[in-house]
């Protein structure tokens, strides 16, 4: 188990600055997910922690040791790669025990460890097969076993599920969560898939263009995004954004200049009771996606296209609908995308509107 600290980390590829002044603490025993669009520097960050990439500046601490000059093999870090990176000429057993052999673990102990691990991940019948003869899921397990058998302080997983089909991915997702609970080791996980991040991580770090946008628990991230990027990145469908210029009928009491107003698709109420106070938008339903328990509507309004999600309600058949978003569910963002908090909103009174 270990805490990881990144202090003022920067990374340049030639003249290209990928990461600048990054500070991050990954808690001991946490399942931390780095998430962001491709090219945001999340994999680079991960590789620097593993020691596969040398940072251009700053310090990396694992536990209470600065590992800047420690080679990857001695950092007590194990990694699972996206394409598994299994040694194709070795058997499953050979793959799993290669790291142990290099550490000089005695033969009898090696055999015991391999046996235990292969039981955990269900590989016992395949130990003498070559990776080529395994399915994608089995290869994934070999990669996991190879990492686990070394009993590392830190597990690093670089998009390990992206090569699996949807069903297997879901299965491995739960297995990984269970594995994390069982081992109690620090997991650092990289993905570009926000659903994966939300479902697995107990700590999520949202990155964009080499800058950490927000590091928080999944719920906090979802309900209290720190900025426009996080708000739009987390959640399917994404948070609806309305440009402030297009907003009508909102009485906003603030001195700050608002760039846009947003709301989560599930907070929009279709044809709600008139006693619900909120921001109302009228629009025409373009598409209806029915997933059984939930429906997703794409609605064209005066201010653009937005999404509404409903649960356990009958499918809306009307073409034109009125969507009401309670005031408390509106999010405000500044001109530079920063979140504005504590803004009071109410309906513009018709009297007041007329009076001005």
């Amino acid at each position, binding site marked *: 188990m270990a805490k990881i600290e990144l202090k003022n980390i920067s990374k340049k590829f030639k003249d290209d600055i990928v990461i600048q002044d990054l500070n991050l603490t990954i808690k001991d025993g946490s399942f931390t997910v780095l998430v962001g669009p491709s090219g945001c520097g999340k994999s680079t960050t991960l590789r620097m922690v593993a020691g*596969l990439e040398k940072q251009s500046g700053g310090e990396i601490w694992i536990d209470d040791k600065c590992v800047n000059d420690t*080679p990857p093999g001695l950092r007590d870090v194990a990694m699972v790669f996206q*394409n598994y*990176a299994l040694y194709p*000429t070795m058997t499953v057993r050979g793959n799993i025990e*290669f*790291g142990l052999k*290099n550490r000089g673990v005695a033969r009898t102990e090696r055999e015991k460890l391999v046996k235990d691990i292969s039981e955990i991940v269900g590989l016992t019948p395949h130990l003498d097969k070559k990776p080529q003869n395994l399915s994608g899921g089995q290869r994934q397990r070999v990669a996991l076993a190879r990492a686990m058998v070394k009993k590392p302080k830190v597990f690093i997983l670089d998009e390990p599920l992206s090569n699996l089909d949807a069903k297997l991915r879901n299965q491995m997702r739960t297995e990984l969560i269970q594995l994390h609970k069982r081992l109690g080791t620090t997991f650092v996980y990289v993905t570009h898939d926000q659903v994966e991040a939300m479902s697995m991580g107990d700590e999520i770090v949202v990155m964009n263009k080499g800058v950490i946008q927000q590091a928080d628990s999944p719920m906090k991230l979802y309900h209290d995004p720190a900025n426009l990027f996080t708000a739009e990145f987390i959640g399917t469908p994404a948070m609806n954004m309305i440009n402030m210029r297009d907003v009508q009928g909102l009485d906003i009491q603030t001195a700050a200049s608002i760039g846009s107003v947003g709301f989560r698709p599930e907070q929009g109420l279709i044809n709600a009771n008139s006693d619900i106070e909120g921001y109302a938008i009228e629009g025409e339903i373009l598409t209806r996606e029915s997933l059984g328990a939930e429906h997703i509507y794409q609605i064209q309004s005066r201010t653009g296209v937005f999404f509404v999600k409903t649960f356990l309600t009958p499918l809306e058949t009307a073409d034109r609908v009125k969507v009401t978003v309670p005031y408390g569910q509106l999010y405000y963002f500044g001109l530079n995308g920063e979140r504005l908090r504590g803004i009071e909103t109410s309906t513009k009174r018709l009297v007041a509107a007329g009076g001005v």
Partner: protein
Amino acid sequence: MKAIDRTIGGSPIGAAAEDKWTSIRSKKMILRKALRAALRALNLAGLLALVLIFAMPFVWMISTSLKTLPETMIFPPEWIPKSPVWQNYADAWNTGPFLRYFVNSVVIAVGILILQMLTIIPASYAFARYKFKGSNFLFGIVMVTLMIPAQLIFLPVYLELSAFKLLNTHLGLILPFASSAFGIFLLRQAFMQISDELLEAARLDQAAEWKIIIKIMVPMVKPVLVTFALFSFIAHWNDYFWPLVMTTNETARTLPLGIAKIREVEGVATWNILMAGNLILVAPILVVFFLSQRQIIKAFVYNGVK
């Protein structure tokens, strides 16, 4: 589909229609089967022709090696000699110190192979995997040596070997081929195809660099390595020019020289004995080839785990 169209447009109804149906269908099937058989036969004939073209010299060599000298001159040639003369092999073997030639050939070809493995694996790995100053330039130099024919450098090499007193020694015939530009090139390409992640995984597994090379990289390029080894072995086993130039007596001479000498005996071309000698020469190569056939085919197919 066509059959259906025809029945829809046609007049027969009921059982009659059904008969027509099946007859049309079976006729078509027979036709198709015949066509397929014909194509297969054609394919077979083509392959056989190819086999004949490639096997003919060998067959002739074997057949000639079992004939008497007058029999070799008969026209049209007799493919299977009436009474095979196995004595030809013994005669060929006894025209010179063939045991010595044979041992020399083995020592030199194997010696070259071992030295080449020791040099080209680290060199090609370095060129493929490390970035260092001047690596492109150095690789360029290696490539340039591919273009220099042996005839151009044999004189300086001869003088050099003689200065080191290496003429007429095994070492003198091995050392000039201790490395191979072709091998470095071939192996470098193979090493470059291996994904970086594999190396990174090995580094995280605390593997030392030499261990990564021996345990992971070399096994992955094994087919290429085997192919190169075979090329190199055949080239040096059959080499005539270099041993001819670098030897002045029998101590280090190799089989090809010995066989060439058969022709000089008595001023008459004794084809039967010459062919027996040739067979002695190519037999080891054939054995090696049969043993490594599978690997050679593999070398040309991408090898890796997706």
